[in-house]
């Protein structure tokens, strides 16, 4: 089986929280197994 994991990290230069959205999906069994929205900034 082939899987794909997408990891998106957003680095913000503003004071507004931004979203970090991580998800991974199985190609043969398309389903979002994990997703979250986390304030993250540097």
């Amino acid at each position, binding site marked *: *089986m*082939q*899987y*794909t*994991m*997408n*990891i*998106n*990290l*957003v*680095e*913000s*230069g*503003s004071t507004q929280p*931004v979203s*970090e959205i*991580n998800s*991974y999906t199985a190609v043969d069994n398309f389903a979002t*197994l*994990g*997703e*979250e929205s986390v304030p993250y900034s*540097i």
Partner: protein
Amino acid sequence: MNTVLTSTTRSSLVNAITGSGYSLSQPKYLSWGTGVSPALPTDVALGNPNGPSITGTVSTISTVTSGDTYFCTGTFTSSSILSVTEVGLFTSQSSPAVGSLSNQVNPTDTTITISGYSKFSTSFPFNVQVSSEVMTVLSGNGSNVFYVTRAANGSSKSTSIIPALTPVVAPSGNMFMKSTFSGMTLQSGDSMLFNIQIQFV
């Protein structure tokens, strides 16, 4: 899931902005593993790396504005049944040194007994990742004991016992980014494509 840029990365980016120079090599090497601790910015390695790293394909892409996103992609193929829980981006392709605790580590301990001693550098000091804590190895006895400083690199000392058999990992190069997630069970021959994007907004 938990994804972080490490403290080393953060300070290097600030150095780039202040003109102090960006000191890290390109983070294009991916490593995956089976560690159990959530990613922390103070981490220096994966909790339990699995096999050699791979060289990712790097590009600059435009998510919102031109060239705002670093993109690295690479595919691992499992050679055994594996529950993958972590992936990291590194500046070096060399494999980390990996041993394990022979005995449990108590919160007040400053020595650790390990198996796999010969896999580690004989040039001290160096940092090791032990669960969620980083320790600086100051010296060793030449066979199975490291003398350490606890809570290194800004990490927190474990307030509970770190059990025997916990991996001890000395990184090769710098870990740029680490992501941990719920275990993804792979069968032998399964492959996993990681698409890692770091977008600046």
